[in-house]
Structures are given as C-alpha cells and as structure tokens.
C-alpha cells in the first residue's frame, strides 16, 4: 500500500478534496473518486489519448499524470462541454458529421479539440488533421472527426474578434 495524500482539485468548476494514493493516476481519481466517468482509459501509457482532459485549459493525458501532481489545478472533462441549452458547437458538429461510432475515444477527441483549437494557426485541414492525430480512433477512419473539428475551428475563428482577416496567411 503506497502512501496517501490529501489533494484539492477543481473539476468542471467544482472543488474536490480527496485522499489519494501517491501512485493513483489522475484519470483513476477523476473516474473512481470524483465519479466523472466520461473520461475513458484505453492504454494507460499515453498513446491513445482516450483519457485527454484539460489541465488549466491545456489538453493532457490524464493517465500520465498522477493525482497528486494535479493538486491545486483546474481540470475540465467532457462533462463540462454541454450546458442546459444543449450540446456545444463541437459536440453538435461531431453528431452532424458522424464523427463517432462506438463513442469510446470521443470524450478524449472532444477535449483534445476543445483545448487544441485555440492553438491552431490557420485552421487548415492539414493542421486540423495533425491535431486529431494526437489521439486514436478505431471506428471512423478519422475523416469525419477531421471534418467536425475543421468546421468548428473555422467557425470559432470567424467569430473571434481578436482574429483579423488573413492575419495568419
């Protein structure tokens, strides 16, 4: 039995005080202690990205982060995307484009896109493809995921007042 630590996490805006083992991964803490099971585990060695969450706004593999390392940080998971008015634009685009089949990789893909879109320079298809290539999907062949992320990235960019036309061209 490894040593235990008291940690504080903000998960989707809610504060949590948790007693965790030193060896417990963040994804296990989120899933089994916080009860946010939307984030999935598929490889536990940082390749597939199914466990992608946002730590202080940036996409991270929550299987490669220990719960104790996240102490004091702000975490966002897939459960934060929709609100009372319904799905957000990214979720809406995923269903419109048929970007998911079994749905197991989907929460990680959504959080990867949510955190990655602001960093895109020109939202070109090739740039979006490279972003999506961070995570694995076994069902779709990726094309429709790239479609959805590209569409939302371009839409958000066109609505962003800080981006001037042709600035990154």
């Amino acid at each position, binding site marked *: 039995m490894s040593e235990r630590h008291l940690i504080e996490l903000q998960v989707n805006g809610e504060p949590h005080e948790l007693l965790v083992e030193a060896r417990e991964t963040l994804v296990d803490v989120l899933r089994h202690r916080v009860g946010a099971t939307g984030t*999935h585990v598929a*490889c536990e*060695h940082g390749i597939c990205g199914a466990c992608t969450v946002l730590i202080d706004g940036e996409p991270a593999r929550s299987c490669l982060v220990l719960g104790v390392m996240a102490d004091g940080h702000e975490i966002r998971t*897939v459960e934060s995307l929709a609100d009372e008015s319904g799905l957000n634009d990214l979720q809406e685009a995923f269903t419109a484009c*048929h970007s*998911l089949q079994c749905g197991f990789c989907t929460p990680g893909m959504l959080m990867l896109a949510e955190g990655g879109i602001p960093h895109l320079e020109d939202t070109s298809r090739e740039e979006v493809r490279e972003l999506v290539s961070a995570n694995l999907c*076994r069902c779709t*062949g990726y094309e429709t995921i790239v479609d959805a992320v590209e569409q939302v990235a371009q839409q958000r960019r066109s609505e962003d007042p800080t981006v001037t036309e042709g600035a990154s061209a």
Partner: protein
Amino acid sequence: MSEPKMSRDGAFIGASVRRREDPRLLTGAGRFVDDIELTGQLHAQFVRSKVAFGRILDVDLEATRATPGVVAAFAADDLVMAPIAALLDRPFEQFRPTEMPVLAHDTVRFIGEPIAIVVARTPYAAEDGVEAARVEYETFDAIVSTDAALAHGARRLHDGAPDNVFVDVSLFDTPGLDEAFERAAQVVEMTIDSGRQNALPLETRAALAEWDERESQLVLHTPTQVPHLVRTATAASIGVPERAVRVIVPDMGGGFGLKCVVGREEIAVAAAAKRVGKPVKWIEDRKDALTASFLAREQRYVARAAFAADGEFLAFECDVVCDMGAYSCYPFTAGIEPLMASGEMPGVYRLGAYRVRGRAVATNKAPTAPYRGVSRPQYVMLLEQIMDQAGRQLRMDPLDVRRRNLITEFPYTSINNITYDPGSYLESLDLCEQMVREEGWFERQAEARAQGRHIGIGFACFSERTGYGSSAFAARKMLVVPGFDISDIRMDLDGTVTVTSGTMSHGQSHETTMAQIVADGLQLDISRVKLHQGDTDRITYGFGTFASRSAVIGGSAVQLAARALGEDLLEIAAHLMETNLDNLELRDGSVHRRDTPDERLTFEEIARVAYLEAHRLPKGVSPGLHATASFDVTNDGTFSNATQAAVVELDPDTGAVKILRYFCVEDCGVAINPQVVEGQARGGIAQGIAGALFEEVTYDANGEPSCASFMDYCIPTAMEMPDIRLAHLETPCIYNETGAKGAGEGGTIGAVGTILGAVNNALEPTGTLLERTPITPRAVHAAMTGGTR
C-alpha cells in the same frame, strides 16, 4: 466526400437520421462496464504464463494472498469451471476436438495465458497480488510457426490434435482441373502471407460479475458481441442452469470480432464473484489486450491460377494454412479462418475448376478469433493480385481480366456451390474506374513515372456474404449453429414502442437504424421508438452482432415484429371504429379510415383500450400490445459488393507508402441510414489500410510477443489515413424484408488487396512483386533498390 444515396420520400428508411446514441456518448453520459460501480465491488487481475509452452510444476499464491488489499486468489483447482469446448461435427481427419481450460492447470500454451485470478480491494492491489505470485514451469521449445508445428516429430500442443492440426479440409476438386492447367495460356503462381493482427477495439475486454441471491442468478456485465452465447458458455462452465446467468452489455467500445467469442477471463470472474459473494470487476489492461486476448489473420496462401489467352479464369488451386495460435475459439472453432477462405473463394469471379485445402494449425501464440472480414481480406488480396499478374502475363489490362471473369448474371451458382444473389459487380468496377479516370490519375501516374516517381493505382473487386443464416453455419458443421434472430416489440399505453433485438450494437448505430425500421413499419415518429439490446433476460435468445448480420437478419426480425404489432392495432381499431380491416391504414401514429380519412384513432387511444379498458377489445383479443417475430436466412444469404481503388506513391528514400487518394463504390442494397453505411465503409477501409501497411504482432523464438504497447503495435492515426471518395449503387436484397444487405465488413475486405495492388503497380518498373502484408517501408525500399527485405 461522397455522393449520397437518395432518401425515399417521407420515410425514415433511406434517410440519414441523426444517431440517437450520440447525445449520451458526446456528454460523457455513456455507460461502459468500467463506469459501473457496485456496492462492495472488488477488483480482479490474472496471473499469466510467462512461458510460451511448458508444464506447470507449481502455482504458489501464498505471497499473493498475503499482499495488502488482496482478498482471494484462485488457481485452476480452486474453482469449479469446466473447460470451453468449441466443436465441429466433422470426422477426425477433418477436425480434431480440443478444449480450452478457463485457467491453465497442467500445460501452458502461450505467453499471457491465464493461470490464476487475484481478487483485491483495489485494481492497484490486484496487480500487487499478481506480481507476488510464483509459478514454476518445465519449459518446452516454443512452436512459433506453422512450419515448426507441422514438422515431423513436433511436440503436440494438445493430445487431441496429435499433428498440431485443428482443422484440415480438402474441398471441391473439380474434375478436369489438372487438364485445365495443362491447356492454359498462362499460369499465375502466387504465395500471399498475411501478418498476425489484433482487431483492437479501443475499449479492452472487461467483466463485472455479481451473484444475486434474491434472483439466484449470476449477473455478468461484459462488453460482448454475443450476450446469449456468453450466457450459455458461462452457465455450462460454472455448472448452473441457463437462467441462473444473466448477461448485460452496456455501452461497448468496439468489438470488430474480437468480442464475438467467449473469453476465459469473463468466466473466471463470474466463478470468483460467486465464490467470494461480492461483485468482482476485471478490466483488461492494454498489454493483455495486445498479447493475451484474441488475434487474427496470420495466414499463408500458396496458389496457382490458370488463364486462357482471352483472360478466362480456367482453374484455381490453393493451399491455405492459418496459424490459429494455441486454442480453438467458442463458438466458431479454429475452423473459422480456413473454412471461410476455402469455402468462399473464388468470390466474385466465374471459374471453371477449383481445388482447395484449408488447414488450421496450432502454435504457441494467443488464439485466433474472427476479425472484421475473416479471411476475406486475405483471399481478396490473393485473387486481386492474381488478376493483376494475369494481366501482366497476358499483356491485357488487368481491369479487363476482371471484366472477363466477373459474375454478371444472377442468381449465379458458383464452382464453390454458393448461389449469389443479384449484385453490381461489373457496374461497381466501371464506376470506380470512371472516378479514378475523371480525376486524371492515370495521366498523373504516367507523368510521374516519366519523372521517375513511383505512383501506383490498385483496384479490388469483391463481394461479401452478409447475414449468414442457420443453414450457412450448419453447412460448416458447427455444433452451436448461429443464424436466426428474434425481435420482441411492445407498445405501452401512451403509444410509445420498445423493440428488443437479439443483435448487439457496439458502434453500428442500431438504436438509430432499428428505430428507423420500426418507425416506417408502424408509420409513427421515430421519437416514439426505443431499441433495447444487451440483456439476456429481455429476450429468449439471439446471436448478437457479427458477420454483418444485424441489418440483414436482426433488422428483418424487427420489421416483422413491427408488422405483427401493426396488425394487432388494426384489428382493435377495426372493432372500435366498426369497419373492415381493408378500410384502415396506419399513418402518422394513428389508424385512419380510408373512406373518411379524417376519422382516426391514435395509437395512444388504441393502446389505452388495450391496457386500461380491456372490456372494449374485440372478442378473442388478449389485453396488451405485444408481438414477437423471428427471421432466418434459409438460402446462401445475400451478398454486398464493392470495388475499391487506391492511388499510392512510394518514397524512394524511406520506402514509405503514401496514399494519395482512395475510392470506394459500394452496394449494400437498401441503405437504411446512408450516413451510417458511409461510416462503416470509411472505418472498415481504415482497418484494411492498417493491416496492409502498419499492424503486426510478431513473436520471437521463445514465443514472446513483440507488441505489448501502442509503442510497438502501430495503429494508424489521422495523419496516415486518406480522405475517401465514396459512391453508392443499390441492388436491393430480394430475400429479406428491408432490402438491406450487410455493410459492416466490406470496407476492410477490399482495402488490403487494393493497397497491395497499388504498391505492386507502383513497383512494376522494378520488376518486383510484394506478396506479404503488412507492407513495410523496409520491404518497399528493398524492392525499389534491389536490396534484401
């Protein structure tokens, strides 16, 4: 990009209805097995063999049991679990019956084979317990190739299979075959090898079992494609009645065939949960999923094909050897791969004479389960390379060799005794070629070649038998004969409909497509229909989802059940409205009079009578609204078909294969939901490309698998996958209720051969032919430079 099928006016069938699964899966509200938490739940992991072949001398679980957090540890002798036996009704010379113990007790036959189950308070403690276990072995030399397994004097893996052969069938042997080879203008010889692959659903295998004392029932939550077969195998193994096992499948993260066989681990978890009296959960880790679950596709085809001068396919002879690993899988048996290949070649081509031998060989590797397409990706790859090579030898356009031989008149009874229903074999090839031509790829290839660049174009024509009925599996001599499916439908008193199907969606969108069928059948809005699957207590039996069977068979059962319910509604309405049945029709969630169309009874009004005012029902009609129907395929089934094409460029420095463009013209009959069909096509093609270019599990001389993580088993990312241009043809199925043919596997079946054909087309100037997948950069580079592979 695609050219969508037209939707039928006002109907749900044929429309790309938004997926009803999506809202929960997009918001994190999906519920997979690992998301379920039961009170008092314990966690299991397995002590697994560290040697590929050996005798177990001692299993010492003392230190395991003393590990903090460990509650119990059981080896084979500690739990009552009968072995799993997958059987064929064939004579010994064709099939050697063997067993797969739930936990290995005497002999271990592959690295990763489960020996003991450790149950602990946390998953972490369970792993501590596994680490503390000590197993002593007498080690034998591992048998890691079919050649070694078949060698004279090789040590036998199973006493029941003295020559390490599970299955050995010789079929057809058409009279005149040898003479046809003698008079042939050209004989093509080809040896095709396919590497061992993992189907790799992103959700690994899992089980959560609990003994429910009140129901005297073991409740097993597990992601399986075949819930009732897991129930049957589990009940038989742990020695309880069939009704004492209830299998529940929540959301499921893919399967692709790997989850359509019964695993040993779920049975061991069930037995352990029953013993400890608490819920026990097992979540397979990725290393075990890669090395110790089920693999597929390691096959060799040695073939000869005879052609006349005009390209006629005269004769074909093939020896198929499949490396099935250590055990025969339940219920399909180790015959799954060789029987599929032997029985279904020569696919879409007319052929004069055929002789085939198919063998399933035992080796010290993780066993084989069906994987999307089962042998068909491999035999299509073989046949398409043969067509290309025949074209080269005969100096004919290889597409014209195909055209010379494609089946064009239907129904067509082939040399393999299968009768093919109508398809668009020639039309799909013509359209696919036209798409490639329109985009100018033939010219671009010629220009590139003139510049010394290596661009290749490959084609594959194929069909896929979908919806194997009971008769097809019985013909394989399976003792457990899948085939039919049952659907149960009920209307509640508010007029909403719940339909239960024995099929099991795990990405295929059944909640949407089956609801579309019911909505059209009953003429009500899709929002009023809910599909239920994945609970063996909700339907008497079913065979789940595999072999592209769900739309064809399950969908037909659902449609028949809806029709029966509709007839009940009409009968009650006729009585209440005091008119004849033929004066009534179902429309907009109501029963309307034809003579006075404004006069109607809503389904809700009728259902209210059926439940709450039963005294108003016609004489002899039972209260309630409920119907059951079943469907089976009694002929050779229905064949989807497609032609795929790829344009690739080879990198002369690295040997890397870049896919520049991909085309697919598919025909799966009536597409119930075109967007879902396209999703299946794209995803299927991606898995075919994965097998063609990237994925392989290899073993070293000691039987140690090379791939224990995603660092060594390289599944493609978005960077490796091309965008795919899809087009559709529609030749409806004439045997079933919906006109739909299966669409689950075709993408994969064609893609491996398409890519190999394109690479070989690019290599033509070098005079080298590649005959093995995955096509590695090393092999391509060697072919381009004349070096060794």
